[in-house]
Structures are given as structure tokens and as C-alpha cells.
């Protein structure tokens, strides 16, 4: 199970309003027709963190080990889409894999 804080992109001291805002923004960016799996994961994450009681319960009772995606998101979150360097495109066209 993914770390819900990382899925919603919020810090661990986020309050109810911040959690809700992050959830609404995330599902707007990822509606179910685009990525149903991620949408469901976002929904689950929101339910886990919705209230202060939920967040403390998550801290005490959630035992799922970290996933590789959690490590990636925690260490270097995804940024804005960017354009590749020409050298990378050339390497790809040359077949340098």
C-alpha cells in the first residue's frame, strides 16, 4: 500500500483542510477515466488521512512496508513535465539502449 501522504503530496503535519485540498486537486488532475487505479489509490489515501483522528490512527496502526514508489516520491518528487536534451533523443534514434 502506498504512503498516503506521498500520494496526495502533502507533509505529515497537514491539517484537514490541506488534506482535502490536496485530494480534490489530485483527483482533478487524475480523473477515474484517465487512471482508475491511481484514482482509487487517491480515494483510499484521502480516507486514511481525512481527519486528525484518521491521521493519528494511520501513524499507529498502518503497518504496510514502504514501496519503491514511496522511496522515489519521498527522495525526488515528480516535477513539471520537461523537454529532453537533444543528445538523449539522438541516443535513442541511434539505438543506444
Amino acid at each position: 500500500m502506498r504512503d498516503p501522504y506521498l500520494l496526495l503530496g502533502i507533509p505529515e503535519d497537514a491539517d484537514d483542510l490541506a488534506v482535502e485540498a490536496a485530494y480534490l486537486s489530485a483527483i482533478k488532475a487524475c480523473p477515474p477515466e484517465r487512471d482508475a487505479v491511481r484514482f482509487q489509490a487517491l480515494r483510499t489515501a484521502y480516507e486514511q488521512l481525512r481527519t486528525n483522528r484518521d491521521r493519528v490512527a494511520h501513524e499507529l496502526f498502518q503497518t504496510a512496508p514502504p514501496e519503491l514508489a514511496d522511496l522515489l516520491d519521498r527522495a525526488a518528487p515528480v516535477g513539471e513535465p520537461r523537454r529532453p536534451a537533444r543528445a538523449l533523443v539522438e541516443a535513442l534514434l541511434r539505438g543506444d539502449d
Partner: protein
Amino acid sequence: MAKKQKRRAASTNRKPSQLSPEALAVQARQNLDANRFRDAIADFKQLVKVESRPEWQQGLADAYAGRARELTAKGMHKEAMVMWDNRAALGTEVSVSVDHMLMMMRAGRLESALEQLARSSDMAPEDQNRLRSAIAALALTQGAALTERLPADDPIRRQAPTASAALDAYCAGDDAALRAALSEIPFRSPYRDLAQILKALQLLPSSPIEAEKTLGRIGSDSGFAPLKQAAELALLPESTFLEQALRLSGSRMRLACTLKGWSDERIALLDELRHLGPHPKPDTLLSVMYKHRGQLGEAWTRQKTLRLLFPHYPTRLDWLKTLGAPRLTPFERWLIACWAAEEIENSWHIADSWSDLADELKHLAKKQAAGPVDKLRVALALRRTDQVTDILSAEPDAERAPSDVEQMALKQVEESLDWDPEDRRTYLRLIAFYRGRGRTKDARRILAAASERWPDDMGVLQTSMEVAIDSGAFKKASTIARRILEIDPINSGVRDALVNAHLAHASKQMLQRRSDLATKELGAAREWARSEHALEQLDIACGLNRLSTDADAGMAELGQIVERLGKGLDAQIAMALAADSVGHVPSSLLKALKLKSARVADKADLLAALGRLRRFLDRGGKISKRVESAINPPMAKGHWAQLERQDIESACETLRRAGLHQVRSKAARAALKRWRGAPIFELHAFEAKYPNGCHDPFNKDLMTLEWALDRARGDGDTRTALRIQGLIDRNVGPFGRGPSPFDLPPFDFDPEPMSGRGESPLEPFLEMIEDVGLEAAMDAFQMPKNLRKDLRKLAQEQGEDAVIELFDIMFNEMLSAGPLDGFLPLPPSPPPKGGKPKPRKKPDDEDPPIQTDPF
């Protein structure tokens, strides 16, 4: 390696075929058609040595091409290139292969590729396009070094600068320049695919669907296909993309990651994680986490370390030492111990562990001047046992709930309200628990606290009404109901609850032959009844009440209702349930109403009757023996085979709940005739046939059940498989069909004189209770059901220690009475040790209703 060497040796040592050329030609063609390229190559080579016929030359060329493609697919590019070169060496009669040329270009053998290109005039147009597209892609990477070798008027050479400018503009993010460059690339240009891809990339990330459509127009054999594939990867949903990113590597994935917005740092970490595989071992993951803990954050790394550690606690605490991480704090130790206890699924262990953690949290809270979150932590820890085990469920589960754990959990949950008094759910849970156990006084105590905090909350108001009904305080209940309906005018549940309460009270009055009071109650019920079901209940109750004052008028009223209900099985069940609730004999009433000879129930009637039965059970009703004997024959006669599969499955479940084993068996057998061997019906048929268990482990029906288990597993029907497995376990016992270790012959040394518990023949059983609990011990000893029930009751009331003590007392008493040959413990009544006091007899109006819904 050995295998490879062997195969290679076999190939080089192939002996020339002794077949005639004609026969060999047939064999060679067969090998080629069957994609046995190595054999085809050998055969055609032998034929070409005999005579260089054009068809044999072409056959050999095709065999080389086939083998080359086969090797390419395996990633053996060098070996594939040898095959292509062998093919090209056959001479100019063999057509140029575009695959060969593409491979030569990829291998950097540009000269050879261009030489072949000069011979490509007879190539198919689509092959020419492929080739030109591949050269165009290469021209972008090699620039003038390649294009200057092409004729000056070649489009690849002429349009190379524009295509290059478009690529530069895209990479630099200069969209205006990109649009300008793209507009100069003609439709039939060898760079057309590049133009399409760059247009699609421009659409990212805002218009992924349009981008996908544009990319879909580019063939997978285009020279620009790798760029297209990278763009397609970037279009994948986030969840799928990561899976691919962990699987693939190289420029394609790197480019896709860049398009997705991955930083170089993230891509580098991905490369590192990819080597761990999709499911790395916890210690490996821990090492990586500690290596990157600067980026991950110390606190986060620590939290996740605990999660990785707990499945291996306490054996692998050395991992922390190896990593140089700090030792576990007392809080962390308690927390991991709690998680580990939950894995074992022992309710006492769970309660004990969370209690210890709560104590530690309370200690920390006192030390650090507790804030709201600290208090919440204590409260949640105190509620956890109930949350995990559901031990304070409103409906007591005699199979599962040892009373000492229940008391412990109850104390914890009550205490949790001191730390977190704002959790409405906990109040309602406690009230439901106390109501379920008949502890109305405690329910009222909690309800008072909840009502003070949330006077207008619907949940609290509804619970207040239910508690009032429990106490028979109908006036109070009506007042609360009116208040609820003021807030929520369409709350039909409140109306139904009040109608049911008045009906139950009316039934009680009828039982006590107080028809006048019953009439009053029924009048009060009618004030609230709105739904069809509630009005129907009232009509039946009124008819039954009338029977006591005017039998003919009562029968006439009931007869009209029977007519309305269709005079079938549904009517029979409605009348039987109602009659039983007011003390009439159901079968006599059915006879008086001439329902005994009712028609055989068809599909619609069966479904209606089952629906009525289900509603009755849902409201906590229980089928009495009198009702069972009245409805069993007409139900068993029903046309069960007419039901659809889903309906008959649901019917079997309802009949199981109702304890109507005979009818359930009939329904399951009818279903098995239509759906032969269906596991769910085999399960119902077995359970209905052996409601008290089958004690012969070699019974034929038990074997059939095992086949059904296999079939359920094969069908992927996990739920049914688990149910059947549980049923088999209960019937065969924990030791399968082999001898039970408890049936082993006695030791051959003389028994010592018996004195005290140590020598009791019950010792293994008593020790097992201490070790694994009463339930598991009774399972292991295959204790008869009636004895289990009594022991369970005793344990619930006084704890499992009382069971052990009781057996000790019994044993000592029997020892003093005489020899113990053939001793078998019998279920005694519990010793008078201050068990649960009987509820005080209340005044008539305060008595709780006996049944909430007789229908």
C-alpha cells in the same frame, strides 16, 4: 552452457543427407515452412552445392532471413548479422533485405548500408519508405557525415536541416520556432514521422488523448519508432508507468521519464532501485533507505524501518545494528509488539499488547504535558483491541469472545473516552454493546453523556429512541421519534422501529390475554405505520387480536389478508410467524384458514416467501420448532428447480440462517441437478444433511465435499473454498484422517498414584486451555457440541480459569468417590461464584418487548 555446446557440436557435425536431391528439396521446403531454419539452411546448402538452381538459392536466402529474424528476436544481434551477411553473399540474384540494411546501419556499417541502398531500386515501396525513414533518423544523429554521401537532390539530404531545426526547437521549448520548422516539412517527407511525433509531444501533458491518436498514426517499423515508443510510455497512467519504469531501462525509458517530469536525481534512484527487483528483501530495502536517508528524511526512514522490521521482530533486530541505526525506543518496541500480536490473531494477546502500549503512551503524555494528539494516541490505542477483534460487537459471538478479553476491551474503550471524549462513534458503539448484552443501565449512562454533547445528532437521537423502546418506555420513544421526524421528515426507519415496538408490545399483551391493551398498542402503531409492510403487519396482528374476542370476525379478517397475499407459501409463512408470536399454534391456524392444502409454491411465491423469511431473520427473529413444523412441508414441496442460480444460492443462505435444514437440503439438491457439482450447493447440501457435523472422516459425502473444494479452488471461488475448507476441518478435525496424537496408546510404565491436578487424566485438556485457550482446546479434542456450549457459557461468565478449576473440583470429587474407569467429563452447571445476576423483574409497562418483528 553445456547444452549450448552440445547443440553447436551437433550442428557442425551434421552429416550430409543421403536423400536424393528431389527428396532433400522436399525436406528442405518442409523445414522452411515449419520455421526449422537451421535444418532448412543445412538442406538448401547441400542442394546448392549439387546444383545452383534459382529456387534452391531463394530457399537458402529465405532460410537465412528466417534464422536472422529468429536470432534478432532473442537479442542475438551479432549472430543475426552473420546470417544476413551470409544471405547477401549469395549474390545479386537475391533481393536486398531492408532488415539487413537497418541492422547494418545500427551496427555502424554505414558504407555497406549505402552500397546496398544503391541496389534497392527493385525494392517494394513500403520497404523503401522504411529504409528512407531509418536513414532520415540516422541523418539527424550524424548530420553532414551521412547526408553528404547522399545525392544532392535526395529529400533526406535536402530536408535534414529543417528537421534538425524542428528537433532543436522542441528540445529548447521554443514552440513558435518548432511550428515554423514543422510547416516546412512536406507531407511526403522521410521526416514526416518525426514531424508527427513532435506535434504529439507538443500536446503533452494537457491533451494526452489527442497525442495518443497522433502517435497511433506512426508505424512501428518507422525509423523514428523508438521516439514514438518513448512518447507512448510517457502517456501511460502513473500507476502503470512506474511498473514499466522499474522493468525497462535505457534511453527510451530515460526520455519517457524526462517527459513525465522526473528529475535526474529521481531517474538515478530509479536505476538503483531497478536492480533490487520488483519485490526486494526487507534488509536490502533497509540498506538502500539508510543510504539515502538524507533525501528521505530521518523521521520517515525510521517510521518505515519499523514497518520493515516488524514481520521479523524480534529475531532481526540485528539489522539496525548492521545499519548503524539507533536502537528501538521503548515506545517503538511496544508498537512493534502490538503489530506482531495482531498478526497472531489471539484476542487476549492483542488486548494485552495494546494495553501495554497505552500505558507507555500515558506515561509519555504525563512526562511531556500531553497535547491533543498525545491524548488521541492514548485513546486510539485503548480502542484498538475492539477495532481489530470486534469483540464489543452488539451481537455477542459465543464462538469467539472470551469474557476476560471482552471485559478488558470494554474497560479500555470506556477509558478511551476520558482521553478523547469527542468520538461519537465510540459512544454509539458502547451503547450498542450494552444494549446487546441487556445492560440497559450502562447503555443509559453512556447515552446521557452522548446526548449532552450532541443533543440534535440523528445517530444519538435514534439510539435514544431505541434505548427507550428497549425499556418499554414507548411514550418517551414516541417523543424522540417526533423530534427525529421534525429534523428528518422522511426517516422511515424511525417509523418502522416504533411500529415494531408497538407490535411487539401488542403481541405480549395478546399472550397475556389482554386484548383491550393490545388494541390500544395496535392503535398507537397504526399512527406511525406508513409502509406497505408495516400496514400488512398491523392488519395481521389486528386479525389475530380479534380472534380472542370474536373468532369468526377474526378469521374473516385473516382470510381477507390471506387472499391478498395469494393463498400460497408466502401467506402460510406470514400467518405461521404471526401466530407463533402471539401464542397460537401455527399449524392449527393454517388449517383453520384452509392454507394446509394450498397450491405448491411456484417461483414467484417462493421468492416472496423467502423475502419475508429474510426480513424476519434480519430483525433478529428466530424460527421456533412450531413454525418449523408448520412451514417445512409446504416449503419442501416448492418448485425449487424454477429458481435462477443467484436466487437459489440466496435461498440456501436464508434457509441456513433459519435453521430449516430439510428445506435447505431439498433446495440444494434441486440446484445440484441443474448445476452438477457446483461447490456452493455441495456445501449447502452437506451442511443441511449433517447439521450437527459428520463424525465419520471416511464418509462418502465428505469425499464429495473435498472434490467440491478442489473445484472451488480451480474456479477461483476463494470464498466458497474457504467455507468448504472450514467445514471439512470442523468435521475431519485438526489432524486429518490420520490417528490423532491424543489417541496414542498409553505409556508402558505404571501410572503413579493420582493425587491433585498433576495426575488428572484431563491434564492434557486443561494444559491446552492454558496454552491456546478454551476454543482451540475444544477443537483439538473434538468436544461434543452440547459440552462446548456449556463450557463456553461458563468461560464467558467467569473466565477460562473457572473452567479449569471446575474440572479440578469434579475430578477430585470423583476421585474421592471411587475408581475412575471410563471417566468422561460431563457438562455440569457452573459453580455458584457470583455469576451474572438475573435481570430484575420490571413492572409490566417497563418490560422489554419480546420480539421486534414477528414477520
